[in-house]
């Protein structure tokens, strides 16, 4: 069984192994034991905080465990707030209109405006799934488990959340936006800039980036074309978030131009449609041996430190109570009649 749970102190080795696999450009998991240990400490502290009434500096890092082998095969996380320790930068793609009635000329010129507008917002991040496990909707479980946690504990997050998506770069890690813009203001290369940022070191951005709006129409075409576009490997992740109600609102990464997607927590499909019900442990109806039958449902418990989320399949829609097998209940760390939260895995009835 595949289970989402908070990361714990024993996971350091597994996390390190995952970090090694993420590769260049995945800056929120770097293969450095000290940094990862700090991350685990932060997450453990965050999940153990009780009575949180407002988001602060919590970092809810979760892992996907294959309970049959005990292996950690993926991670996902939510930062309660960004930008409160170090500034969080993005570009807002705005519009400046230049018009001359006399000449009949009307130009709506797009501009990039440096800002810290996401300061204090919650961010979903650190999504990584081992290649061998990219099947059986594990990716969706990993991504959407976070929404179950947010649905259950909305007070721990801000009204709006966002996600940064990896932007376009070629096989050599060359980003067209960086080459046309950032490079002129930094004397370091894209990789180095990206790494510094990921280590929380962002002062240099304020120091080196131009304050003034940048006219997009003056950038070369290859740079213009990548604004708000995701890396081809990230297309599925983007679609998944958009299906949940996340929207691109013209905020892009200052280095590679990748889009930020945002949503109000209460408008996320999985949050809005999820509901609490009581768990009955027993033999559920509508469970078929045939994997192609039945709808998928996310089920999570209602606990913080012992948060669990799993994916189940049922051919008969669950009603006000939810019958779970003993194994499912165990995976969720619940006993009979405890509350669970459920939601259809995707906005469409069947996949």
């Amino acid at each position, binding site marked *: 069984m595949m289970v989402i749970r908070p990361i714990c102190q024993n996971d350091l080795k597994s996390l390190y192994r995952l970090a090694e696999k993420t590769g260049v450009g995945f800056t929120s998991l770097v293969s450095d034991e000290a940094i990862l240990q700090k991350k685990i400490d932060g997450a453990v502290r965050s999940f153990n905080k009780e009575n949180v009434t407002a988001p602060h500096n919590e970092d809810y890092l979760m892992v996907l465990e294959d309970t049959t082998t005990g292996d950690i095969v993926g991670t996902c996380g939510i930062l309660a707030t960004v930008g409160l320790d170090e500034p969080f930068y993005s570009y807002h793609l705005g519009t400046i209109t*230049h*018009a001359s009635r006399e000449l009949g*000329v009307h*130009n709506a010129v797009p501009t990039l405006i440096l800002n810290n507008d996401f300061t204090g917002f919650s961010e979903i991040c650190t999504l990584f799934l081992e290649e061998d496990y990219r099947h059986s909707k594990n990716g969706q479980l990993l991504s959407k488990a976070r929404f179950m946690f947010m649905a259950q504990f909305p007070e721990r997050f801000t009204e709006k959340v966002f996600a940064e998506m990896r932007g376009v770069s070629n096989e050599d890690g060359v980003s067209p936006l960086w080459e046309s813009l950032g490079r002129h*203001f930094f004397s370091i290369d894209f990789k180095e800039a990206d790494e*510094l940022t990921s280590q929380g*070191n962002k002062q240099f951005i304020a*120091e080196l980036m131009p304050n003034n709006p940048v006219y997009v129409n*003056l950038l070369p075409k290859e740079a213009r074309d990548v604004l708000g576009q995701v890396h081809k490997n990230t297309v599925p992740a983007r679609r998944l978030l958009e299906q949940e109600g996340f929207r691109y609102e013209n905020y892009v990464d200052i280095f590679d131009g990748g889009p930020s997607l945002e949503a109000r927590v209460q408008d996320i499909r999985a949050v809005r449609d999820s509901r609490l019900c009581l768990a009955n442990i027993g033999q559920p109806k509508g469970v078929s041996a045939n994997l192609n039958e039945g709808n998928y449902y996310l089920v999570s418990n209602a606990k913080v430190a012992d948060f669990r989320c799993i994916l189940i399949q049922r051919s008969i829609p669950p009603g006000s109570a939810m019958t779970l097998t003993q194994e499912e209940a165990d995976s969720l760390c619940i006993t009979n009649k405890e509350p669970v939260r459920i939601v259809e895995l995707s906005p469409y009835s069947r996949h």
Partner: protein
Amino acid sequence: MYLVRPVDFADLPALERLAQQAGIGITNFPANRERLNDKIASSRRSFQTDVVQPGDESYLFVLVDTSNDQIIGCCGIDAMVGVDTPFYSYRIDEVVHASPQLQIHNRVPALFLCHDYSGTSRLIALVVDKAHQNTVAMSLLSRARLLFIARYPERFTARLFAELRGESDKHGYSSFWDALGKHFFSMDFKKADYLSGVSNKNFIAELMPRYPIYVPTLPEAAQDAIGVIHEDSDQSADILLNEGFEFRGYVDIFDAGPSIEARTESLRTIAQQKMDKALSLTDKAKGPMHLISAGHLEHFRVTAAHAEPQVAGLAIEKATQERLGISSGHRIQWVAL
């Protein structure tokens, strides 16, 4: 011989011909008959008006080949630009971005739209027939303006500037315009150049980028064109640089041609010009070439001739006196060529 005098309505056809020759990039001298006629009218008004301080006057001078009375050149002075609509330039300024921690200290040049030359007198449009582009004719025409300014300082500002034509090819293609202006004006350089000569300049305020342009983000060809003088203007530029005009980091918003400026009183012609009596020479003048002017405002004339400075004044030939419409004893103004 050559003579410089204020423009008159009869000069219109000649001006039109010169404007057509001048080509693209000389925005204040458009090949448009109506506009040229307006310019002549405005110039005549300016010469005739009593002026106590500079305003929107515009003075146009023509260069005459006295051998056949042909108009072979033209130039002018605007008493003050930016009176009705602001006068725009780009100022090249360095933006410093430094990160002590990363040991990076970047100086990034950027173009800032500004009105810094608003309220300043400007030398405009020096155009001379190809056949007469020799040192004497060019220098006479260009510096005649400075003699005029020296005579009537109350009509001009204490600072003076001139715009030098920037790089563009004979089809009017400017790599700077192509990289920058085109995106905001949605027209080609030729048209923008023409419009800025013939229409009010509101459209510049309406369409120009309002934020600084970081130079390194422009294509290389455009970067290379910034502050570069069109080769056809090298000669007239040299005359002004020689006078003491300096480049202070201002360029034209369309073709990035450099503007050069000076304190009026420190210009060579203005500092060195003298005013005294015209003396007569019976035989041919043996002295060096001089620029010599005489006459008040609309009767202002300047010519170039050999002359001999003497204690009581400047001795010039009879023919020179006649060209200037004076005789011995009249007050004249001169400076060595």
